[in-house]
C-alpha cells in the first residue's frame, strides 16, 4: 500500500478506469460486430450494432440447411462448413495423438537414459523447431507430390499426408514432457525395476500414469496447433470437401463474392468450440508448464 496519497491520486484512478474501459470497448467491438452481422439478413454491413431485424438465414447456411430467399428461390449453403469443422477436428485429434505418442517415448529416453550425444540431440531438437514450416512449403509439397505418385493415400489432397507433415513438429513437446519427467523422482521406477519390471514396464505402468496431466496438456497444445495451422494445409489440400476450417474459411471473403454474413455465422459456429478448448488449454498450460517445462 502506498503510504501517502496525494490529491491527484483519485483523478489518476478515474483516468485509468476510463482508459481501460475504452480499450475494452475496442477489444470487444469485433466480437460483438461479428455476432450482429451473423444475425442480420443479407450479406451487407448496413445496419446498427443491435440489428433491428433478426434473421437466422446465415446460421441455417452455416449448419448446412438451405433456406428460401426473398425472391422465393432456395438458397443453398455456399460451403460445407460442418464438414470442414469435422475435417479439422479429425486431423487435429489424430495428429495430436500421434504427436503425444512420439514425444512421450522420446522424452522418456531423454529424461531417464544415458546415451551418447544426448545434450546435443536435445539442443538440436530445440533449434530445428525454430524453423517455421512455411519456409519448407515447396519441399513439403514436392515430397508429398512424389509420395502420392506411389501411395495416393499419402499424396497431395489427403488428410493422411497432413498428419505426417504435422508429426515432425514434436521438438517443443519433447522438451515439455521431459521437464515434467525430471520432476518425478527416478527412484520410483527403480523400485519397480528391482521388483523385476523391464524398463518398458516401468515406463508404461509406473511413470506414465503419473504423467497424465502433462500428457493432457501436450495433447491440447498439439490439438490447437493443428486446428489453427494454415500454411501447410493450404498447400497440401485443394478439393473443397477436403479442406480444413482454417483453409476453407478464407473462401467466404473474396472481393468479388463477399459472403460477410455467411462468414460471420460460420466463424462463430466454428470459433466457439475452438475458443473454449483454447481457454481450457491456457489454464492447463500455465499449471503444466510451471510444473514442468520451465525447469527443463
Amino acid at each position: 500500500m502506498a503510504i501517502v496519497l496525494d490529491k491527484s491520486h483519485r483523478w489518476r484512478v478515474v483516468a485509468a478506469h476510463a482508459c481501460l474501459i475504452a480499450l475494452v470497448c475496442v477489444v470487444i467491438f469485433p466480437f460483438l460486430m461479428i455476432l450482429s452481422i451473423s444475425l442480420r439478413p443479407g450479406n451487407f454491413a448496413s445496419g446498427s450494432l443491435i440489428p433491428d431485424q433478426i434473421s437466422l438465414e446465415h446460421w441455417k447456411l452455416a449448419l448446412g440447411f438451405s433456406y428460401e430467399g426473398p425472391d422465393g428461390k432456395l438458397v443453398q449453403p455456399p460451403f460445407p462448413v460442418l464438414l470442414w469443422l469435422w475435417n479439422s477436428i479429425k486431423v487435429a485429434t489424430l495428429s495430436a495423438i500421434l504427436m503425444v505418442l512420439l514425444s512421450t517415448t522420446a522424452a522418456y529416453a531423454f529424461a531417464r537414459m544415458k546415451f551418447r550425444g544426448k545434450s546435443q540431440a536435445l539442443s538440436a531438437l530445440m533449434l530445428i523447431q525454430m524453423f517455421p514450416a512455411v519456409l519448407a512449403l515447396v519441399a513439403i509439397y514436392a515430397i508429398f507430390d512424389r509420395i502420392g505418385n506411389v501411395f495416393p493415400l499419402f499424396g497431395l489432397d489427403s488428410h493422411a499426408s497432413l498428419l505426417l507433415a504435422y508429426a515432425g513438429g514434436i521438438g517443443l513437446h519433447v522438451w515439455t514432457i521431459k521437464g515434467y519427467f525430471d520432476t518425478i523422482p527416478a527412484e520410483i521406477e527403480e523400485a519397480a525395476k528391482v521388483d523385476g519390471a523391464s524398463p518398458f514396464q516401468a515406463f508404461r505402468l509406473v511413470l506414465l500414469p503419473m504423467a497424465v496431466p502433462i500428457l493432457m496438456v501436450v495433447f491440447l497444445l498439439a490439438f490447437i496447433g493443428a486446428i489453427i495451422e494454415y500454411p501447410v494445409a493450404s498447400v497440401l489440400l485443394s478439393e473443397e470437401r477436403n479442406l480444413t476450417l482454417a483453409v476453407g474459411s478464407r473462401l467466404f471473403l473474396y472481393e468479388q463474392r463477399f459472403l460477410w454474413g455467411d462468414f460471420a455465422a460460420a466463424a462463430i459456429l466454428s470459433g466457439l468450440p475452438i475458443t473454449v478448448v483454447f481457454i481450457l488449454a491456457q489454464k492447463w498450460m500455465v499449471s503444466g508448464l510451471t510444473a514442468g517445462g520451465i525447469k527443463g
Partner: protein
Amino acid sequence: MNQSSSGMQRWVWPAVATALALASLYFVTIVYAAGEFLLAGTILVVVALAAWVYTSPRFYAWRYLFPGVAAVAIFVVLPILYTVTIGFTNYSTNNLLKFERTTAYFLEETYEAEGKTYGFALLQQGQRHRIRLTESEGEQAFLTPELELSAPSEAAAPAKAEHKHVKAQAAAADAGAGEALPIKELIRLQPALKAYTVELPDGSQVRMTGLRQFGPVAKLYKKNDDGTLVNQQTGEVLKPNFEAGFYQTASGQNVPPGFQVNIGLTHFKQIFTDAAFREPFLRIFGWTVAFAGLTVLFAAGLGILLAVLLSWEALRFKGVYQTLLFLPYAVPGFISILVFKGLFNNNFGEINLILDALFGVKPAWFSDPLLAKTMILIVNTWLGYPYMMVVTMGLIKAIPADLYEASAVAGAGPLTNFFRITMPLVLKPLTPLLIAAFAFNFNNFVLISLLTNGRPDFLDTQVPAGTTDILVSYTYRIAFEDSGQNFGLAAAISTVVFAMVALLSWINLRATRITKEEAR
C-alpha cells in the same frame, strides 16, 4: 506374466519383426519400380535403421527415441535440406518433370495417321460406360468392356494422364448396351476418353481423333541412339539441352514440357544482383523488418503499459479487465484475422461505415499501401499484446515491493517508478521473448496471407510482388500462386530466409543464456 505367455513372446516378436521387415522390403520394391528412387532409398534407410535399433541391445535408448527422431528427421529436417537443394534447380511449372519422364512424355505423343477410321458412340448404363465403334460402311461394330471415365479435376496436370489400353470385341451393330450419350457429355468426358487406346480384334489400334470418330494414331516422336528425338510428321530433330532444361529444335527453340536440371547459383545471383529482382526483394525485406519490429514494439508497449496499470493496487475490477483484455489471445488467429478483413473492407466493412458516419471519410484500407500497412500493424498489435501483458504481469509480481516503498519515501512519482524501477527490471527477462516474437512475426505468413495476401501490388516491378508482402508470403506467391509457379526461385528465397532465421535463433539463444546467467 506367466511362463507360457513369455514363451509365446519368444517367437511372436521375431515373427512380427520378420513380417514387418518383409512387408517394408516389398514396399521399397514397389516404390523403386515406380521410379521414385530417392523415396525408395529413404524408406530403405529408415527401415534398416529401425531394424538395427530394435535388435541391437547397444542402442536400447534409441528404441524410445527412434520414432520421434525419425519423424523430426523426415518431416522437418529433410524438407529443410530438400528446400536448399531445390533452390539450385529450375523446378517450376515449365520444368516440372524429371528428364526421363519428359522423354517418356514426348515418346507418348501421337498424331493422326493414315488409315481406316471408325464412327463411335459412348454408351451409358447406370454409372458405367462402354465405347461402341462402327466401321464407316456400318457393317461391323465393336464394343469395349466397361471403362472408368470421370471428368478431370482441375488440379490434375495434363502431363500426368496415364494411357490406358482396352481390347474391343466384335458385336452386332445395334447391340444395346446402354444409351448413347449426347455430344455435351462427350465434350465433358473427352479428356478421359482420349487416354484410351482401343485394340480391335484385327490387331489395329485406334484412339479418339474427333468428337465422332476414332482413328489410327502413330507415335509422334522416335528416339535416336544419341538421345535426340525425331518428329515423325515433320522430320524435325529435338536435342535435349541440359543447361536450359528443355528439348530444343535445331534453331534453339525450347519445346515444352521442360525437365529439371541443376542450374547452380543462378537463382541466388538473381536475388542479389539482378536489378529487376533485387529491388523488390530489398523493399520487401525492409517492410518485413519494419513489420516485425513495429509489431513487437507496439504489442510489447501496450502489453507492458496494461500490465503496469493492472498491477496497480488502487485499481478495482482488475480481474474483469484482465479477462476481457485477454480475449484476443483466446480466439484462434485465423478467425480473428478474417473478421478484421471483413471489418476493414472498403465497402461492406463496419469500420468504414463508422468512420463515414462520424467524419465522412472512407479510407481505402486495402488499396492504399500505407493504409494497408497501418491496418496490418493495428490487427497484429490487437492479436499480440495480450501475451505480452500476461507475461509482464508475472514479471512485475516478482519485483520486491520494498523497492517501491523506498521510492515512495524518497518522494518519487509514478513516472519515476515506471522508468527507474519497473522498466529495467521487466525489460531484461523480457528480451528473449521479444526476440522470439520478432522472429515469429518475421515469418508471420498466416496474418499477411489471410489479411491482404500481399496486396496492393507494386506497379513498377517485373516480378509480381506486393507492398504488404513479407518475405515468406512473397515466396509463397512465387511458388504457388502467380502463373508459372517457380518452385526453384521460391526455394532459393526460402534458403536465404532460413539463414536469417538461423541467425535470429542464435541471437535468441545467446540472449536467453545471458539472462539465465544474470539470474543466478
